[in-house]
């Protein structure tokens, strides 16, 4: 159970700079009545973030990144997406996605 003092300092600093952007909006925005336009804009943020997180993961790979439209990640995403639309079950979607991805790995 060894923690190097230099590493400890680095971890603390990383923790601090990660925590502040998580805390600031929660602290300031949760106590104020937000103007309508800001609420309407923030309402669109989750769907935007999720899509921006996922799509590059599915269609781009490598370092530096390049397009690759024939990745198993993308092929499996289509039935998984349809299943989620139909069933609205998060657990089911995860299990199905894993199973299909595993099968795809076996087949190709």
């Amino acid at each position, binding site marked *: *159970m*060894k*923690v*190097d003092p230099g*590493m400890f*300092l*680095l*971890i603390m600093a990383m*923790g601090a*700079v*990660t*925590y502040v*952007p*998580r*805390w600031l*909006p*929660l*602290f*300031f*925005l*949760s106590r104020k009545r937000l103007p*309508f*336009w800001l*609420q*309407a*804009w*923030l*309402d*669109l*943020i*989750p*769907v*935007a*973030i*999720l*899509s*921006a*997180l*996922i*799509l*590059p993961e599915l269609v*781009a790979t490598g*370092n530096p*990144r*390049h*397009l690759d439209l024939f990745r198993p*990640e993308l092929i499996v995403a289509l039935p*998984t997406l349809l299943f*989620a639309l139909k069933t609205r079950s*998060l657990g089911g*979607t*995860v299990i*199905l*996605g*894993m199973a*299909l*991805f*595993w*099968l795809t*790995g076996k087949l190709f």
Partner: protein
Amino acid sequence: MTEHDREKLLGAIREGVKAAWPICLGYCPIGLAFGVVAQKAGMSPAEIGLMSLLVFAGSSQFIAVSLLSSGAGFLAVVLTTFTVNLRHLLMSSALALHLRRVTTPWITIFAYGVTDESFALNLARFRSSGPGSDWDWRRALVVNHVSNLAWVISTVLGGYGGAFIPRGSFGIDYALVAMLLGLLVFQLRGGLYVLVAVVSGFTAVLLSLVIPGNAHVIIASVIAATIGFFLSRGRGASQRAEPVDES
């Protein structure tokens, strides 16, 4: 603590854990992988656990470790971590709408657990809560902390010898992607949301091809939400954001 309070607390824990399991499942392979990588970069299991506990942001931890092993200095690692994790600023802003009347100490604890996954899951739950399912900040807090626990445990285990687990077992590497896909689907509550998702996704792909790192997430989200916002304004009051419940 009265009988009623205890009942409420246990209920929140039960429902929070029930909701969080897909996140935990998704964290396991990534956590193990991080542990292996970090251990190879010279970190002890205690250091790995401490980093997972205090930073709790997967991609930035991977990046930090790879920077460290390539000899980067203190400031470079801290600045990169800050940039990579700046996207949480947007997530916390969106979550704040649902955390009114939560006291400052709880807000301070809650903020610690805001990740891509807990944010998306909690927000979907807050939105669908109504008669029959009442998602509140206590349940959301349980989701945050159960996920954190899964992350800490899996990264430390990885540090002890995750190399023995075969890669790609049971498609578990796909768990997080599938979960985020499911959560994205839950967010599509009308044409405007589909449009924003499409714009954001394509913008993010384009940007990700030209800028390294993950700044594309925050830039694409802001662009797409802003376009969607002005489009909905142009169309008048037909696509209003739902009023936020004060309770």
